[in-house]
């Protein structure tokens, strides 16, 4: 009995967190994602499922509350937008190193600095290349509809617990704020299972559980790094997700995710009217990046336009996948500006077809 509702992307995240059986949410208000905390508070999840919701004093506190609760084996989620996610980075690095599962949502806004509250995709490097200190990765999911805002919360929790790793949902102010029809999944029970590694109090018969990211001996710390890297390799093999649109007989390709990918779908139609066959590869996971699929398409098409609401961050991964075999160019707007479908088509014509 799934339920259809018209919702904002941010509300869908919040509702999905309750329905996925999350145990706790900790967060701090920031535009354009404050609706997540507002919706949760209004819904009284404590009465609906027993879920804890707490407004923290800062994003620094919020991410460390996440660390504490995740260390108890609980299903926990936080959300923020760019400057707040920057503040969380030390905590995210600790969480990745301590191998704690959790879901982080970044509703990206234009930067750098305080920037703007308008949508942007300029946090790609931060999400996919580490963000915090040390060698680690997040699984990064990039929804492009309100439906996926809901669905990916559930998927993110599954990956987080399967791989004991933080999972980020990287979206932007446009998807966070826009309203669309969503088919909500059914309420799931909060889990009573206690993972073997969780700190919940040490009974006499088991060794104590310790959540830490500290190994003072370099040899031991290197081992921890090897273990993490082995896990990331497994994730790359099993969790690389993408969607292809009109790629079968495409002569040109656009690579775009999130809001940009929605706009590119319109560009495909405009191009077709002009007799231009352009396809779209949409990475659904930004990390792991669908590099194999892009390499395959690079054998078929004549050129690739990487479309991103940034100065060109994802294009670096596209170029690495293509290995210089064909032309790869970036087109994007910055600082909260959203490109139009015609603008993208013109860029395709000028930079790839004519260029």
């Amino acid at each position, binding site marked *: 009995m799934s339920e259809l509702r018209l919702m904002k992307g941010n509300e869908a995240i919040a509702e999905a967190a309750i329905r996925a059986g999350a*145990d*706790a949410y*900790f967060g701090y208000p920031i535009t354009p994602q404050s609706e997540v905390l507002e919706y949760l508070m209004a819904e009284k999840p404590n009465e609906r499922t027993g879920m*804890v919701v*707490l407004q*923290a*004093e*800062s994003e*620094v*506190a*919020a991410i*460390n*509350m*996440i*660390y*504490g*609760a*995740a*260390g*108890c084996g*609980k299903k*926990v989620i936080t959300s923020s937008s760019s400057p707040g996610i920057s503040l969380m980075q*030390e*905590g995210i690095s*600790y969480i990745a190193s301590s191998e704690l599962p959790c879901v982080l949502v970044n509703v990206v806004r234009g930067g750098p600095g305080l920037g703007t509250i308008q949508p942007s995709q300029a946090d790609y490097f931060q999400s996919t290349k580490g963000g915090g200190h040390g060698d680690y990765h997040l699984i990064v999911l990039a929804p492009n509809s309100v439906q996926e805002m809901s669905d990916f919360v559930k998927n993110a929790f599954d990956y987080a617990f399967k791989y004991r790793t933080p999972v980020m949902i990287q979206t932007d102010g446009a998807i966070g704020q826009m309203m669309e029809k969503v088919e909500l999944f059914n309420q799931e029970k909060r889990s009573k299972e206690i993972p073997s590694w969780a*700190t*919940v*109090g*040490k*009974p*006499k018969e088991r060794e*104590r*559980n*310790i*959540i*830490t*990211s*500290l190994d003072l001996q370099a040899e031991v710390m290197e081992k921890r790094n090897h273990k993490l890297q082995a896990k990331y390799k497994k994730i790359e093999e099993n969790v690389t997700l993408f969607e292809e649109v009109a790629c079968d007989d495409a002569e040109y390709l656009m690579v775009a995710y999130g809001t940009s990918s929605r706009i590119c779908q319109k560009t495909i139609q405009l191009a077709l009217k002009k007799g231009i066959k352009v396809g779209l590869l949409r990475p659904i996971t930004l990390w792991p990046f669908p590099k194999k699929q892009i390499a395959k398409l690079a054998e078929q098409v004549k050129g690739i336009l990487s479309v991103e609401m940034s100065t060109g961050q994802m294009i670096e991964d596209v170029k690495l996948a293509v290995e210089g075999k064909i032309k790869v160019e970036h087109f994007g707007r910055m600082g909260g500006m959203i490109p139009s479908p015609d603008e993208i088509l013109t860029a395709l014509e000028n930079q790839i077809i004519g260029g």
Partner: protein
Amino acid sequence: MEDTIIKTENIVFKKTELLTDNELSYCPGCGHGTAHRIIMEVIDEMGIQADTIGVAPVGCSVLAYDFMNIDMQQAAHGRAPAVATGIKRVLPEKFVFTYQGDGDLAAIGTAETIHVCNRGEHFTMIFINNGIYGMTGGQMAPTTLPGMKSSTSPYGRDVEMMGHPLKMTELIANLPGTCFVTRQAVHTPSAVRKAKKAVRKAFELQKEKKGISFVEIVSNCNSGWKMTPVQSNKWMEDNMFPYYPMGDIKLPE
């Protein structure tokens, strides 16, 4: 002969059950080890090992989890109160405590400290105030006394330039979310007995869910202060205690 000596009634001291066999990483004479011991004795005597989660800080006691035989989490520098909030909120029936130094609790973690004490989280905070950053090699702490030398105040703390020592304990006692606030020491047997009573009371209060119970332990850092252990304890009595007076600051209603 031996049998007659080792009778329960003859035992005056034994190894604390809930301390592990790992060799303490603290300098000989340092108060951290004694503070660990009384906390573990209290947990043992209350029979709550299976219901307790501790949070270690960044500081000399970062490895507290190597010595305390309980489930523990190691928090980022200053964030132990936020980590403990996360734990206690999802496990409200468990006993939760933070163990933090003065740099951790009263400098980098000031915001977290004040907010847990204001929200009235139901856990215990143990605050080891040694007036210095022990772990990083003796730099000035927020609690360093006026005129006191450290590696970053080599001519003594100049309050005009470097600000005043922070009495965090008095400050948080004013907040509505604290129920028990006390200042103790562990440098003499009688001080240890008093401090242990205070720690016990702090843990007992968690059952009543009345907010933060807070035990400051004014302690020495003989290495950072560049003194022998004995000198450091004397210096602590003569200089730290007048500025950080012993005793209860706030009692539960």
